[in-house]
């Protein structure tokens, strides 16, 4: 492992980071359209509008970058980057295939991932506060409250897996995976995935950006490329959460021919989960704010604790 290798891995991760969210975004467009009985983008790029998001990006780039006069300029401009960067860092630590097919093998992988993801909330808060807009501020506050609440069940569910595997290293966890872990950790998977959804502020947990109440929350004042960065961070978040769920609960690269096709399995599982995320958006209505908090504290945390207890009991029983 030398500096060149490290650099290469980072570049690869960057590429993945730029490509996968676009794919997920395009998928969302089409899937939502078909679920709602329409076609979705059809013209950009020719075949079923495959270049729609590229066109969107070009459009965003062309737009004027407006900063409200009452806003705190620097923080306003910095916020999208703060929101986006943590996902890039997280992506670095997610293993795709066996044998070091990973951006950076970090010893305390789960820890790193969750810690860095926690920083993302800062971006929303900064954006909400710096916009000098009361809807934005409310959105920022809602984001903070929601993310603080859902981080705990997420951590607990991840801890359950780490306990089962006996390591906090992400490749280590995937290595330790057996098929019967899926029923064993199913509650944890549900909790982790749901909490991750809430972290992303995806429907039905999109109270912070509820357009019918507070327009677009923290992102109301953003236009152009900065708004695109926020959108990008959301799709990157979908990728990250799906990938983490895959790695932690669905066995990652495990599957037939995992030695050669492991990376494919990982990607497939990730995309399946991303599809579920889109599907949920179309299916469920938005939760009310108090229902949201109540759900986190009275459903997810007890479930996560129960999963933790179950994991501990079975772990002791096995050994």
């Amino acid at each position: 492992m030398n500096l060149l290798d490290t650099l290469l891995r980072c570049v690869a991760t960057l590429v993945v980071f730029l490509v996968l969210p676009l794919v997920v975004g395009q998928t969302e467009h089409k899937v939502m359209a078909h679920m709602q009985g329409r076609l979705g983008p059809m013209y950009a790029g020719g075949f079923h509008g495959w270049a729609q998001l590229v066109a969107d990006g070009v459009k965003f780039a062309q737009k004027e970058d407006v900063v409200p006069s009452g806003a705190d300029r620097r923080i306003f401009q910095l916020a999208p980057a703060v929101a986006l960067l943590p996902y890039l860092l997280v992506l670095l630590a997610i293993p795709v295939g066996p044998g070091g097919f990973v951006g950076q093998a970090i010893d305390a992988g789960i820890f790193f991932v969750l810690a860095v993801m926690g920083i993302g909330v800062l971006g929303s808060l900064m954006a909400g506060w710096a916009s000098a807009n009361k809807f934005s501020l409310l959105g920022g506050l809602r984001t903070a409250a929601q993310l603080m609440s859902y981080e705990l069940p997420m951590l607990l569910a991840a801890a359950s897996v780490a306990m089962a595997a006996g390591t906090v290293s992400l490749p280590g966890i995937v290595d330790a995976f057996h098929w019967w872990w899926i029923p064993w950790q199913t509650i944890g998977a549900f909790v982790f995935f749901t909490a991750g959804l809430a972290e992303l502020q995806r429907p039905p947990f999109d109270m912070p950006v509820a357009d019918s109440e507070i327009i677009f929350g923290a992102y109301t004042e953003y236009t152009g490329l900065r708004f695109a960065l926020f959108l990008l961070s959301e799709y990157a978040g979908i990728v990250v959460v799906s990938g983490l769920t895959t790695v932690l609960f669905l066995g990652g690269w495990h599957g037939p021919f995992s030695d050669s096709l492991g990376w494919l399995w990982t990607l497939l599982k990730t995309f399946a989960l991303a599809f579920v995320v889109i599907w949920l958006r179309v299916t469920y209505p938005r939760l009310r704010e108090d229902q949201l908090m109540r759900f986190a504290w009275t459903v997810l945390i007890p479930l996560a604790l129960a999963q933790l207890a179950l994991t501990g009991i079975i772990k002791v029983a096995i050994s």
Partner: protein
Amino acid sequence: MSTLLAAAGSLEPAVRSFLSPTGQEIVFLLVGIAVLGAAVVSVTTKQLVHAALWLVVTLGGLAVEFLLLTAEFIAWVQVLIYLGSVVVLVLFGLMLTRAPIGRSPDADSGNRWVALAVALAAAGTLVTLVVDAFRTSWIDLSPGAGSTEATGTYLFRYWVLPFEALSVLLLAALVGAIVLSRNGKGRIPRPRPGKLRTPVRSVTAASKER
């Protein structure tokens, strides 16, 4: 994170002298200057939210310092707790106490010059004492001393009882915070879950009540 350490330079204690610092020392020094500068800005800026954001920089820089001191687990805990929770809480508190955008002329109290004098005196004393006391002390850094495995080992082998006591403390703090935050003996009727006719109880409602 051993690569980061490796990138920073050799771990071998080659020549020990101030005049020829190792790469690690240089990195530590640079990050330390950044940390210190961010801290100073954080305690002197007149923009309240900026102070909190500069605090983020300070704490993040400290996490890097922890990494450089081979305390890897602690570094991530630092990121998780401080950056992910404490600073968010602080920002939350600032926003709930209506921190304005722009400069607040009354961010500093009239005690400023006394505080400066006291802080400078303390700094002079402490730095003098520390430098004098540890003039010839060197740290032998070896990777792995702060790894997750080592941490788990000592934490659950030697420190179980304090760990459990700490959990009780956290529980008490949780209960205390909830009790303190309750809105004054139920003056405002609680919304009943699952019934749509009750008004939305949210941060919006809370801020309107005030």
